[in-house]
């Protein structure tokens, strides 16, 4: 009896050790980034690495002062918000039609954009946008980020629309409403959670995108991921300031994820479980 209880306690202990280990591994890079962003240069290069130190805001002041970071923040926000809004505009009706009329081919055609290596369209875009004098324009960046956002919207929303029962639209249509009217005034108002999910995820993916912006943007439309990359590759690395920038880039996406946790999980796993 006592022996069995002891074994059970040991198993429990091991289990919580595993939980703790997972948490530490997940958090360590975030923790170290955050800690380094508040360290002085002297504390950062201290060996062995310092866990206790007097925090300073100098890195943030330097990062935001010397570089045009507010501009890059603005650029990332403009590109993210515009490409998500336009993707919803194109994606919602498409997803509805795919869900209601089982248009598998159309859905595959749009979703292939999610599978393809981005560089197989980036190279032609570079040539075309140069010819059209659209390099370093918001238009080119928004169009390229829409190709990230649109498949996310269509993927999440087509499965969301499928889960909305057909009866409500049908009864509205029997009462004389057109199908597009039923979509607008009955289906869309019921789609809040799906729209929140697809908006959050596609905005984060646009926010984090590096490759498209690296090629298509220059000084005027430069987004945050490019800014931090340039910060590291040019100057002698100022780790404190770089980590302050890394914290600033990741914070919006992480805050969104904390607020919309349930939706983010749904969006990332949708379609993975069923047939």
């Amino acid at each position, binding site marked *: 009896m006592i022996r069995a209880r002891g074994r059970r306690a040991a198993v429990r202990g091991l*289990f919580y050790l595993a*939980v703790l280990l*997972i*948490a530490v*591994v*997940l958090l360590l*890079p*975030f923790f*170290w*980034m955050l800690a380094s962003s508040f360290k002085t240069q002297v504390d950062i290069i201290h*060996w062995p*690495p310092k866990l206790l130190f007097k925090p300073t805001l100098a890195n943030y002041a330097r990062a935001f002062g010397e570089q045009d970071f507010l501009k890059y923040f603005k650029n990332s926000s403009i590109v993210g918000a515009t490409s998500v809004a336009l993707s919803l*505009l*194109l994606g919602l*009706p*498409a997803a*509805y*039609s*795919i869900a209601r009329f089982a248009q598998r081919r*159309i859905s595959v*055609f*749009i979703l292939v*954009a999610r599978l*393809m*290596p*981005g*560089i*197989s*369209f*980036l*190279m*032609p875009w570079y040539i075309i946008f140069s010819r059209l004098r659209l390099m370093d324009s918001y238009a080119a960046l928004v169009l*390229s980020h*829409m*190709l990230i956002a649109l498949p996310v919207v*269509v993927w999440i929303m087509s499965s969301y629309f499928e889960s909305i029962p057909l009866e409500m639209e049908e009864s509205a249509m029997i009462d004389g409403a057109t*199908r*597009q009217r039923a979509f607008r005034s009955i289906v869309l108002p019921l789609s809040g959670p799906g729209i929140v999910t697809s908006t959050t995820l596609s905005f*984060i993916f646009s*926010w*984090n995108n*590096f*490759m498209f912006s690296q*090629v298509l943007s220059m000084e005027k439309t430069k987004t945050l*991921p490019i800014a*931090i*990359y340039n910060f*590291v590759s040019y100057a002698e690395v100022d*780790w404190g300031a770089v980590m302050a*920038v*890394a914290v600033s880039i990741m914070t919006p*996406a*992480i805050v969104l*994820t904390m607020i919309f*946790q349930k939706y*983010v*999980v749904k969006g990332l*796993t949708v379609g*993975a*479980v069923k047939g």
Partner: protein
Amino acid sequence: MIKTGFVERNLKILFPLPAVLFVAVMMAFPVAYTLVLSFTNWNLTSGAPPAFVGLRSYARVFAEPRFLAAAGRTFLFTALAVACEALLGIAVALVLDREFVGKGMLKLLLLLPLVATPVAVGIVFSLFYDPTIGLADWALSLVGLPKGAWVSGAATVLPSLVLVDVWQWTPMVSLIVLAGLAGLSPEPYESARVDGANEAQILWRITLPMVMPTILTALVLRTIDALKTFDIIFAMTGGGPGYASETLNILGFKYSFEYFRMGQSSVILVVLFLVVMASSMGIMRLRAGTPA
């Protein structure tokens, strides 16, 4: 009956049309253009217009040792990363499938790597691997080992990059597998318990086989994305030291935007595209073959 309007009658076409046109213009046309360019010897720096050379660009690229090495490296990186992510991801999902104090918190933590900006993640790991102040060397020193070469050694760079990918994307596998576990029917478990099966038997004979289709789905997604890994490699090593971490995606990028050899870069892009498509279809077929 109600008279139906133009939109009503053609809704099936009109609703998806803008999205389809957009994808056609932004994806299908550029991919076709890349395919056409792959049969030319176009070099943007020469100023000469593209000339058709048949399969000569393919021959040039396939004979290039740097290309073959990059192709092999792409597969190696993907195989290592996806294997680690599968094992760790399933293990973490099994831990999270139980009830325990702090479960909600751990599930939130699991999401954080997935939404963290990959370039910034790469840069944070560069600080870990830094030869003078890196935490990675400090960890080795704790167990009495000498400093490692990490991303600056030709032999260690690929595993060091795999580690970053594994940190960032293992949670994706866990999340998907966890959703699969939540959807399993309880009946087989009940009858197994009645028959006196132990935990290990239940795990191997019931849980894993039942959740296998979901695991394979997660692996398809991870394989596709691992083959295309760009941000962390570009930010941490740029393909170096030498060419030691150059994958097809990095090589294609350099051919396109550093050397401007568009004909040859198109060949690399076509190959990468075919590899990604073939791998996704291969694993999809594997999945179709599993029961349930």
